[in-house]
């Protein structure tokens, strides 16, 4: 708002005095700002609260969905334990597979090295 606009409002004798007058003045200020294309403070507050509410709502829905877990496959802990043992044997087999690959490549490297050494020492 320009000082001229403020002065015009202060000279406006039609405005009532007291708290009612203050409210009317604030409303006028808001309208003046909106007319000039700038959003008023009140509008900013309502925007931010709207965005925050949306964010909190989506976060809440997300957390609620995350906490809703799947159903246990086994009712019997012994069966579940057998499954755990199977998983660890699968992991063990995987590690063994990796170890074999390393041993194999190690042997390849060794035999290649032997050939190279034989050539050099011949």
């Amino acid at each position, binding site marked *: 708002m320009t000082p001229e606009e403020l002065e015009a409002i202060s000279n406006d004798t039609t405005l009532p005095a007291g708290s009612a007058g203050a409210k009317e003045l604030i409303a006028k200020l808001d309208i003046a700002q909106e007319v000039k294309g700038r959003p008023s403070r009140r509008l900013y507050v309502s925007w931010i609260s709207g*965005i925050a509410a*949306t*964010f909190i709502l989506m976060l809440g829905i997300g957390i609620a969905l995350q906490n809703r877990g*799947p159903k*246990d496959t086994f009712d019997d802990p012994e069966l579940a334990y057998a499954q755990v043992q199977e998983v660890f044997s*699968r*992991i063990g087999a*995987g*590690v063994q597979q*990796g170890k074999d690959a390393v041993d194999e490549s190690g042997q390849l490297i060794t035999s290649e090295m032997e050939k190279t050494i034989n050539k050099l020492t011949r």
Partner: protein
Amino acid sequence: MKKIILTVILAVLSVSAFAQTGKSLYEKYSDLEGVEAVYISSAMFKLIGKLPVDMGTDSVDIGRLVRSLKGMYILNIPNSGPASQLAAEVTKMIRGGKYELLMEAKDSGDRMQMYTISDDNFIRSFVMLNTDGDETSFICFDGEIVREDFEKVVLESM
């Protein structure tokens, strides 16, 4: 206009805050046709830990390891099904998380990868993706597993 853009950005941010996990993959694939799925909850692991069976040898205490698990997700998908899609999503999950490659082995079309989230003492999450000629298997478990226990159990299972 600004309001709409800001709302969209925040909505996208709040959705991306929920990245893919073993649980979300399990929920996505477990109900599909032809998929074998197993889930063991934290409560069930506590029950297993109380079983009156000998769960360990002199060197390995499987009971302690089992009690420290918080959830196990297993998916076996035939390669004729959405196996490649699962493999791609697991790769995405690995890249998006703090996973480190534990080991990888390839042998004439078969491929096995193991990843963990861990520190010096604990393994917080383990993922194994295994693709062979017929099917793709995904194993994932979370918890606070003592690294030493895990290594001993794996070595004993070899």
